[in-house]
């Protein structure tokens, strides 16, 4: 990143995060100027700015340009490549992650816009080598072929089960409404989710 592209002004919170993440807070201070008008919110970017994202329960310090999407930051700097980018327009849902537990399209969300909200990716579902029950069920029910849509599908299905432990087939179809599977694994995906539901009392 050329020096000219560095951040020119920062919020106090970003500034404090930045000083925490760098060896030399003084040098950083000299490199930035705080927006002169105290009553105007600071303008940051277009170069990279320091950001703290909560991903899979851990705080992650990253340096991102405001134009980067959450999907790009997950797959790039954070090396969490389980999240896939398909259409990059929110139309295929391959990039689905959880934001405070709700499934969202990470390709249509700027990383700088995530704020304090907790991000959960497919890597955060399994516990070590122990897969999430939805992942186990996808394998048992042959619910994938090429696998590209699978991380997003699993995130939406697992989110459904968190909200509705005993869903109907229609509930599952509604939950995967936005997902495209070019291999056509939909019937097996519905079967897999129905197999891990917890019948009510």
């Amino acid at each position: 990143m050329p020096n000219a592209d560095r951040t020119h002004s920062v919020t106090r919170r970003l500034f404090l995060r930045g000083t925490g993440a760098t060896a030399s807070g003084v040098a950083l201070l000299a490199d930035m100027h705080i927006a002169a008008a105290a009553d105007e919110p600071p303008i940051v970017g277009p170069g990279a700015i320091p950001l703290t994202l909560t991903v899979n329960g851990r705080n992650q310090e990253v340096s991102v340009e405001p134009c980067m999407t959450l999907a790009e930051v997950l797959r790039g700097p954070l090396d969490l490549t389980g999240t896939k980018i398909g259409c990059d327009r929110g139309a295929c849902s391959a990039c689905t992650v959880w934001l405070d537990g709700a499934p969202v399209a990470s390709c249509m969300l700027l990383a700088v816009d995530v704020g304090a909200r907790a991000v959960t990716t497919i890597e955060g579902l399994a516990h070590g080598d122990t897969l999430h029950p939805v992942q186990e069920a996808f394998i048992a029910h042959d619910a994938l072929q090429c696998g590209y849509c699978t991380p997003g599908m699993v995130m939406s299905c697992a989110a459904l089960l968190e909200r509705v432990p005993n869903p109907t087939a229609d509930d599952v179809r509604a939950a995967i409404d936005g997902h495209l599977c070019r291999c056509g694994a939909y019937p097996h995906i519905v079967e897999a989710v129905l197999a891990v539901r917890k019948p009510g009392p």
Partner: protein
Amino acid sequence: MDRFTWQSARTVAEAASAGKCTVAEAMRADTDADRVVMKAGGIDLLDLMKEGLLRPTRVINLRDIPGLDTITEDAAGTRIGALVTLEQLAAHSISRQRYTALADAAASSATPQIRHVATLGGNLLQRPRCWYFRSAAHHCARKGGEHCFAFAGENQYHAVFGHDGCAIVHPSTVATALVAFNARVELANAQGGTRTVALEAFLVGPEVDVTRETDLRAGEVMTAVLLPPMPAGVRSVFLKQAERLSSDWSIADVAVVLQRAADGRCQNVSVVLGAAAPVPWRAQKAEAALTGRLIDAAVANAAGEAAIAGAEPLRRNAYKLPILATLVRRAVLTAADVRETVP
């Protein structure tokens, strides 16, 4: 996506004083102009930016402004904050119970992933989905060019009413229901003032200005949508037809709101057609066909036919007319609790 600077507003006043132009203005601005636009959920904005149709120099973030993400009601009606998401709107008890057509319209929009992020304000201010408008290769009339390419081109998803120089259909599904409820929008400006305007007047057709879909002024922030109280006996129904059952755009949708007096006759009738015109299209002849009448199959059928009277279909979209008529008939019968009999 091109790079831009980012400014997160903490108050509506901050956003209003920072905002320099509407998205429509920014899309037509010179490349050396200061293109400062506002972002709520950001779904449509990112779409336009990824296609290179919108290249903002700065994005003002509205999402962190407190107080704009709640739905409240009092004697004067219901206030829906502009940052309420489509998912909130689909699930909230007030919208579900009082404004059922609105909740159903929200639930039928986009995908679950988009509904969790997309806001009501952003949904109403999104730019049209016409494939010529969305194509960087087509400098269409709405983008300041000479022609609407849809008239001579592929127009199966375009307007059958009101296409005066541009054949887009309004992109918002919830707008169909909101117009049927006589919703108003609240707009704040940089001077600290607020104006409210009927949504039906706020959304403008190409005969007013082909380069914008709304009466939003530079620096204005939509803060809320206001709905009148619904007296007892009001029923509302929203029906949508798409090519696929899952997460698809409407090829036709309809919102019907009606009240039945003690003698069962209809009053205060709204019939609004979506995906039919550049704005949500009030079917006044259908409303007249229902007002003061007892609903039966014949009256509902007549309302459906009245709804499409005067339509001007293009080369490839006349198929929409029987769909619109059918949706109106079914919505009227459902709103009046009359079971449809198969002829």
